[in-house]
């Protein structure tokens, strides 16, 4: 017969062991790619005998990688910018409005999140071709703005809703007009949230494949699309090097978000 305490220890030990196994499962695939990126071999094999930087050099030298990386960055920055331009004012209005209509508009603005991108990409390509935009950077940008909007609206709306309207009320009582209140009171308070939302949008855009795939041409291919087609023909560590670079960008951006906005609420 197990004593009470023995059962207790068994459960705690079990949870600990389980959490360790879980951690290995979560981290191993990430570590393995970073390790492969520094391999000197021209194929992926274990154990790695020689180390080198050559695959990072190849990223720079192999034109499709470099060109598509430029397209990816340009696209990410522009789509985050336009998504902010459209999303921030709407988020401010809606987080102070109540009622069924405001709720419905909010849900509508978040709905691109729930539509499979493959469906959205397919539908948008034909639609944009019909109205004369076709496979172009503009089309790609429009698609990415649609996908980015929910992130901006959510981050900014969430932050603004949690803030007391007291400061703005005080400013107005003290004689500020609407624009002054916005510029001196509201904007400084939501600046962090706007930047955080924009960075989320950047990360989403940089990693998007399913939308970009439909608008891909030699001048509009993004890095993940080029990586996907590269992976279909060859299997060398350059993919690992490109992934590592992307990982570093994402980690840095997320660190910035943490500073600006805090990843609070992650554990509830």
């Amino acid at each position: 017969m197990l004593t009470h305490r023995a059962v207790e220890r068994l459960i705690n030990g079990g949870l600990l062991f389980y959490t360790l196994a879980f951690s290995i499962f979560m981290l191993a695939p990430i570590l393995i790619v970073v390790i492969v990126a520094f391999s000197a071999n021209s194929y992926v094999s274990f154990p790695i005998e020689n180390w080198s930087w050559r695959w990072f050099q190849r990223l720079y030298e192999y034109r499709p990688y470099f060109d598509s990386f430029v397209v990816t960055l340009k696209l990410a920055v522009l789509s985050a910018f336009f998504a902010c331009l459209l999303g921030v004012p709407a988020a401010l209005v809606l987080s102070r409005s109540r009622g069924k209509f405001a709720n419905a508009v909010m849900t509508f603005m978040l709905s691109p999140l729930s539509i499979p991108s493959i469906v959205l990409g397919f539908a948008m390509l034909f639609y944009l071709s019909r109205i004369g935009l076709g496979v172009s950077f503009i089309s790609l940008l429009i698609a990415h703005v649609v996908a980015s909007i929910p992130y901006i609206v959510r981050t900014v709306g969430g932050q603004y809703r949690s803030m007391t309207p007291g400061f703005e009320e005080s400013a107005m009582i003290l004689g500020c007009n609407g624009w002054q209140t916005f510029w001196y009171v509201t904007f400084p308070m939501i600046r962090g949230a706007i930047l955080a939302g924009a960075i989320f949008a950047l990360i989403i855009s940089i990693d998007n494949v399913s939308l970009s795939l439909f608008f891909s041409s030699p001048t509009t291919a993004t890095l993940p699309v080029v990586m996907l087609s590269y992976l279909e023909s060859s299997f060398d560590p350059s993919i690992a090097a490109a992934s590592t670079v992307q990982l570093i960008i994402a980690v840095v951006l997320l660190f910035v978000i943490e500073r600006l906005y805090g990843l609070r609420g992650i554990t509830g």
Partner: protein
Amino acid sequence: MGDGKGATLIGALDAGISVVRRPRRRAIQFVPRSLVLPIVLFLIVFFVLPLAENVFRSFDPETGREHYVKIFTDVYYLEVIAVTLALSLGVTVLCLLIAYPVSYTLVRHSGRWSGVLVFIVIAPLLTSIIMRSFSWLVLLSRQGLVNGVLLDMGLIDRPIRMSAGLLPVTIALVHVMIPFMVLSIAPAIQAINPRLEESARILGASRIRTFLTVTFPLSLDGVATGMILVFMMVNGSFVTLQILGGGAVQTLPLLIYQQFNLTRDFGFGAAMSNVLLAIAIICLWLQISLIQRRGAEAR
């Protein structure tokens, strides 16, 4: 939306926002309401209209409903739909089984390690979708690490082929969906008053019974949220299946892309994307009604 990062970190945002309450009294509103118009117009023109046009495209002027008849009567396409739904359900259930104990540990037992555990949970979200798929190719390939370890341990005589097919697809999808499941369940467990559990223990319930009759039922809301979210995302996932499926697993997103890229039967592709869209909308509706129910309870 799509695979992985397509919805990256939205769980984190979700959790951050769900604790926020609307101000009780009517707040001042000095931002002109008309500023909602540009974004609504933009989304109508570039989001709603393309999807609406897609519905028209799927009904060919000559053949009418033929595409849908084909999808819902041809055994091949019925099987593709079945595989898509079964894969989504399977990954959702596996995620739940793996993520629940982790969420419980994170909230109740991690103590000063909680920051580290949160980092481990969200780590896959920092990686690109290509990176994750590539890493499973590396780990599971014939000369990969997993085969190497199994050979060394003497569990197998020769390498098993497992880098393409249902197994790697499932593993890769579970890996990337776990963060969303944990980020949905953990806040629900966090919201349970520990005194309820204490009371159960004081009244003589064992730890397991306390969990089964108090903790677990009270966290069901988070479980439902996570399950819908994961189901929805797996349903639309494409890249993981494209890289790791090896042609052995056919799902709707893959077929839609093939219609676009290879077969070039756009009307049929449109019809299939509407089927996928319908599934997504059902999930969205479930999600919204869950949030509304929760809102009604909080009031």
